[in-house]
């Protein structure tokens, strides 16, 4: 913490006031006192209000965890405001964080009730956002002394992906659980009609269908399908980020689409009572086991926000063990530019799991090229890479893996229904 020091204004007022008085006395010219008398007032008042204590100050955020696009306030707290008149705050700009005032610079008088200037902060992209350093200066009354500028280290914000609007009315293809909202192939105590069959010992009396029983002269009961939950495994490809991210209001990169879609899917399935798990394929190998409930959802969103982008050392398809059990719906969110991801997806398909791929590559994505690379060569290479990717996606489709582009609500309805219909058919699964 620095100390109070005189301002240039006080030095100037003292210098001009003293000079005017001295020359006036020496030369007997009262006009010089007329010129410099107001400076004497400034100098005297500045000196009179010399601070005697050194206040300590810190900044704090109202919220440490936010969703993209939400805002919070960075508040300055000063332990002793009795000798402070004005505050200047200069917050450094950082990418993907919007501030108000827009440049993060604010200069305000302290309010009569001790209110200090507030900088509003709004992260525009998910992830861990380190707010920049902030320089703070306090000025005493009559601007005679200044404390600072002192540099304070910026706070860290955990920015959860925005809850993209998503809803799906489609059922899970193979619900195998205990209690849930998906119509199971097994008979149970659900509400969905399955069949009418002769009464057996143990059947509930309220299940008897009297109309059929009277007609057939023997007791018949109505059977229904069980309603079960399902396991949903969300696989996030964080091997690279393609495209340019403009934040929550701008263009979306491949990881933006991936993370926001994963958050929306997780929220949707948790809301329906399904067990959701997360596997991130990236430098951090973040994962969340199967679970349900709001607390579990918060854990998933937190992991998504803190994922590390990049390819792990020695990465290959052999490393990808997702631990998907039978009946689990696997949703792979990937731009499918990695052979390992394509191989892992095909392996899951061969196991007989319902797998669907959400293509997250933005249509206008361009590769990041090394400086000095011929742009024509880079363009040709990128087009070839996209052609290879199209082939991979076509092969996955041929294997029975639906590939869809994320478009929010209804993205998965059609493909999940098709998967559910296919699940009714006998299948041969390879292990």
């Amino acid at each position: 913490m620095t100390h109070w020091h005189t301002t240039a204004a006080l030095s100037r007022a003292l210098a001009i006031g003293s000079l005017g008085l001295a020359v006036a006395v020496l030369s007997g010219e009262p006009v010089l006192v007329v010129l410099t008398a107001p400076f004497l007032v400034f100098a005297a008042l500045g000196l009179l209000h010399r601070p005697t204590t050194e206040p300590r100050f810190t900044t704090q955020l109202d919220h440490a965890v936010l969703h993209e696009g939400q805002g919070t306030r960075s508040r300055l707290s000063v332990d002793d405001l009795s000798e402070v008149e004005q505050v200047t705050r200069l917050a450094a700009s950082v990418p993907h964080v919007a501030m108000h005032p827009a440049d993060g610079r604010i200069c305000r008088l302290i309010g009569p009730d001790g209110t200090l200037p507030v900088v509003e902060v709004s992260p525009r992209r998910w992830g861990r956002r380190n707010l920049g350093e902030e320089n703070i200066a306090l000025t005493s009354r009559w601007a005679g002394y200044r404390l600072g500028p002192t540099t304070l280290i910026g706070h860290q914000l955990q920015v959860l992906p925005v809850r993209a609007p998503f809803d799906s009315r489609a059922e899970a293809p193979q619900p195998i659980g205990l209690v849930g909202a998906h119509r199971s192939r097994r008979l149970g105590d659900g509400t969905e009609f399955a069949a009418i069959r002769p009464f057996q010992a143990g059947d509930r009396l309220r299940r008897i269908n009297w109309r059929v029983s009277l007609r057939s002269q023997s007791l018949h009961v109505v059977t229904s399908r069980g309603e079960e939950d399902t396991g949903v495994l969300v696989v996030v490809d964080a091997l690279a980020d393609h495209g340019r991210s403009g934040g929550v209001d701008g263009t979306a990169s491949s990881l933006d689409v991936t993370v926001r879609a994963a958050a929306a899917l997780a929220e949707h399935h948790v809301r329906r009572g399904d067990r959701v798990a997360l596997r991130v394929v990236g430098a951090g190998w973040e994962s969340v086991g199967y679970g349900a409930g709001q607390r579990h959802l918060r854990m998933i969103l937190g992991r998504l926000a803190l994922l590390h982008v990049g390819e792990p050392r020695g990465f290959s398809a052999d490393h990808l063990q997702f631990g998907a059990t039978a009946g689990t719906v696997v949703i792979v969110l990937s731009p499918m530019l990695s052979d390992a991801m394509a191989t892992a997806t095909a392996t899951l398909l061969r196991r007989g799991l319902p797998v669907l791929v959400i293509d997250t590559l933005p249509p206008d994505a361009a590769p990041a090229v090394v400086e000095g690379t011929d742009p024509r060569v880079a363009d040709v290479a990128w087009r070839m890479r996209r052609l290879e990717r199209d082939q991979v996606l076509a092969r996955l489709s041929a294997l029975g893996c639906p590939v869809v582009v994320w478009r929010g609500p209804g993205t998965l309805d059609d493909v999940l229904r098709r998967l559910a219909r296919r699940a009714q058919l006998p299948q041969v699964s390879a292990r």
Partner: protein
Amino acid sequence: MIGAWSPGQWALRVTMVLGVLVALASTTLVGVVPDWWLVLVVTGLALGFASSPESHAGAVAMAFVVVWWGVSLRDGLHPEALLAAAGLLASHVAGLLAAYGPDELSVDAATVRRWVFRGLASFLLAPAVWLVAVLLRDRPEAPGVWVAGLTVALIATVAASMAFTAQEPT
């Protein structure tokens, strides 16, 4: 960095330059034109003051003006001195406001209002001193009148400071 100045900062910087130049040029109204080299030096210092409000250029420029008033006009208790005092004070207050932060900092209207009020209140001392000086001009100079005057001025300053502190607008 000039390109990054906000309109408010531009207004402050222009006031800083014009205030000093008006104070210097106000002797012209009495018939004494400042030398060209003096105008050049003061203009350069004022521009330096405007570009760097925390520098000593402002104090030096103002010192030139004060000394010029002392040497150019003998017994110069002209009312134009009040214009010069207003110019110097305006330049000083504008420099004080500009020094609250970096060049790109937008100017806070409440802060400007407070300092304009303070500046106007402080300026009242100039006509008061001028009036006293005019009234006493033709009287024989009593021994110790300057010391007494200085003491009265300082006491008045301290009293005024107390009054300002109690009545400051919020």
